[in-house]
């Protein structure tokens, strides 16, 4: 892991409760309330017991929350520390080694107790000790050449009764001041907990047994930081834990078992900073139906192609009829030119009338048609590849923008609800509960835009080698088309001014869109094998 990543994960916040985590470990509940921002608190206070049941039921169906994510917990560092301690205790007990040795052994086995134990039954202990850098610590053998030293090799001062040398298990000894300087440099300047003996070329590792006496009294904050680094190594090596990717957030997602992780499809929700993320790859939002690996490849590709793609995107923002430049300022892809009233599709720039269900084949726009691009030379092939990528990228990008817009709308709706609540009095109460349906619609729109965005990444890889007449692809595109079509429609309905909005239409449409959302996810996650 690179330094920049470390900084990202370990940007120390001034979060008062996380700083002394290792000193008081029983503060579990104290900030459960403070973790909510004021908006969230208000929103909770607003919860209306009389809200129409249909709204809450389709909302919970849209966001896979309670049954699945309940198994994945968000923890403060102080809560996870005992888990690491316990694992060390178990190793200490089973192997009869010190805590510090147990930590070093676990570290060399990615903190897997099982793998460590398995290795102990199969391999020669000395090999294990050497690999983990605890050979001298475990065998009790000192380096014969090291024991007779009477001068500290770091400050080059002679040892004295007032400043005796303190030796590592390997026999290499240094004075107390130099141990402190060494530990300060390690934690503060190198930003890590692991190191080998200060003696050149000695593979024995330095553990908490050496660092604690060097730091705890003189630099308590750095001693704390040292333990944070130990925990960080644990979190990063462990497949069932992951740092919350929320900016500045230091919570850790924790799954009790691998099957619990699978059951939740890796979806975690941080209750501290309200970030939803993928625990398996750390992406900062859920990315169904794309697998983590494909998403990674996609992001790399987008980085490589960004210049070309940006150029194309920047140059297609003109009305295809009168060439007036058009700013897309809402989430809907159905564009109407203010100048010539030409209606067109933002994604394919085609006439919107051809997108109508009645004119046969609504959203031809989601299908990539390679047959239109002939030629067999290498240049043709390269152009075809670029066009294929751009086809998917444009749609991915359009939904990403749509997602941002939907999120903005959601925040506005929430804001409006809060304002109405503040006006208090019984007659406006009716008004804000009236608009609850809009909040639900907006939430679903954010979700749909996000899923649609990732369906294009999914399709880009899943159908790369699929023949033109592939039934699987047809079905996938059918589901995608339906979701896209109804999302656009809901988008349009919910963007109207409140006075013109038809509540029943929106509520019904929301329910329909949710159905299509579940359909496509289910279709992909069931292996694309359902009957038509």
């Amino acid at each position: 892991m690179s330094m920049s990543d470390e900084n990202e994960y370990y940007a120390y916040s001034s979060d008062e409760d996380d700083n002394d985590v290792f000193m008081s470990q029983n503060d579990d509940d104290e900030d459960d309330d403070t973790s909510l921002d004021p908006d969230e608190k208000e929103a909770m206070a607003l919860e209306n017991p009389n809200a129409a049941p249909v709204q809450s039921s389709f909302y919970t169906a849209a966001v896979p929350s309670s049954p699945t994510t309940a198994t994945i917990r968000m923890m403060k560092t102080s809560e996870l520390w005992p888990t690491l301690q316990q694992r060390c205790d178990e190793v200490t007990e089973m192997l009869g080694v010190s805590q510090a040795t147990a930590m070093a052994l676990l570290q060399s086995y990615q903190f897997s107790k099982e793998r460590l134990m398995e290795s102990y039954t199969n391999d020669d202990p000395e090999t294990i000790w050497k690999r983990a850098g605890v050979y001298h610590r475990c065998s009790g053998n000192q380096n014969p050449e090291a024991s007779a030293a009477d001068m500290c090799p770091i400050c080059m001062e002679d040892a004295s009764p007032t400043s005796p040398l303190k030796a590592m298990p390997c026999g290499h000894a240094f004075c107390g001041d130099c141990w402190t300087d060494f530990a300060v440099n390690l934690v503060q300047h190198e930003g890590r907990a692991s190191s080998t003996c200060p003696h050149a070329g000695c593979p024995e590792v330095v553990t908490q047994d050496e660092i604690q006496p060097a730091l705890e009294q003189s630099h308590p904050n750095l001693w704390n930081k040292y333990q944070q680094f130990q925990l960080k190594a644990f979190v990063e090596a462990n497949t069932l834990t992951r740092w919350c990717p929320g900016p500045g957030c230091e919570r850790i997602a924790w799954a009790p078992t691998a099957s619990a992780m699978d059951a939740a499809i890796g979806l975690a929700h941080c209750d501290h900073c309200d970030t939803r993320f993928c625990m398996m790859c750390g992406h900062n939002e859920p990315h169904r139906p794309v697998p983590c690996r494909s998403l990674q490849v996609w992001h790399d590709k987008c980085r490589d192609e960004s210049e070309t793609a940006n150029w194309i995107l920047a140059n297609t923002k003109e009305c295809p009829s009168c060439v007036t430049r058009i700013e897309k300022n809402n989430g809907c892809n159905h564009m109407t030119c203010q100048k010539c009233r030409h209606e067109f599709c933002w994604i394919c720039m085609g006439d919107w009338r051809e997108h109508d269900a009645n004119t046969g084949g609504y959203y031809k726009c989601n299908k990539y048609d390679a047959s239109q691009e002939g030629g067999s030379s290498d240049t043709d092939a390269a152009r075809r590849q670029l066009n294929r990528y751009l086809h998917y990228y444009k749609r991915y990008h359009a939904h990403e923008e749509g997602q941002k817009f939907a999120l903005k709308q959601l925040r506005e709706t929430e804001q409006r609800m809060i304002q109405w609540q503040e006006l208090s009095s019984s007659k406006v109460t009716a008004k804000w509960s009236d608009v609850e349906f809009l909040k639900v619609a907006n939430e679903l729109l954010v979700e749909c835009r996000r899923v649609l965005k990732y369906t294009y990444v999914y399709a880009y890889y899943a159908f790369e080698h699929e023949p033109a007449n592939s039934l699987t692809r047809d079905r996938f595109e059918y589901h995608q088309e339906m979701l896209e079509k109804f999302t656009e429609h809901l988008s349009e309905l919910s963007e109207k001014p409140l006075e013109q909005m038809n509540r029943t239409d929106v509520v019904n449409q929301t329910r329909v869109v949710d159905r299509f959302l579940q359909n496509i996810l289910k279709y992909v996650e069931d292996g694309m094998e359902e009957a038509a």
Partner: protein
Amino acid sequence: MAGANGRLVKELKEVSKNDTSGVRAAPVSEGNLRHLLATVEGPSGTVYEGGIFEINVEIGKQYPFEPPKMKFLTKIWHPNISSQTGAICLDILKDQWSPALTIKTALLSLQALMCSPEPGDPQDAEVAKMYLSNREEFDRTARFWTESFAKPTSKDEAVQRVCEMGFDEASARKALEKHKWDESAAVNELLGAI
């Protein structure tokens, strides 16, 4: 670091001694213990024999918990040393540094590196390629560089040759030093100044 200065004073006393080690270092200017000029004698039996190689040494704030920064000032043809910049690729000057090592041990390690290059971990790809593919040509080039850039007498001779072209000794030496003893560059500058 506390006590680092005390250690530096001791180290400098030790490394400035005129002993048989073939390595030496002293502050560039009085009063600044953190910028040194070191010299390493080319080990006998190698293509660097007879040369005196100058090395710039900078001691950072975290010393001895970080390695001293070292760079060849004298041009040298060696797989692990850049023929352009003098940058050195040596593990103990990077991640294998230990606070129990000293400036002297680092210089001795450089001397050892001159005895046994490691072309598998090159700093200068061109030199390393020649070292592996045409050892004879490598030896010839390295010897020529030692003769041209690392010999104290070769410097006097260079000054002599530039003087013969009609320049006074002081400006000839100054121009040569500025251009790292590249004669044609020095002459060009002197000609431009006329």
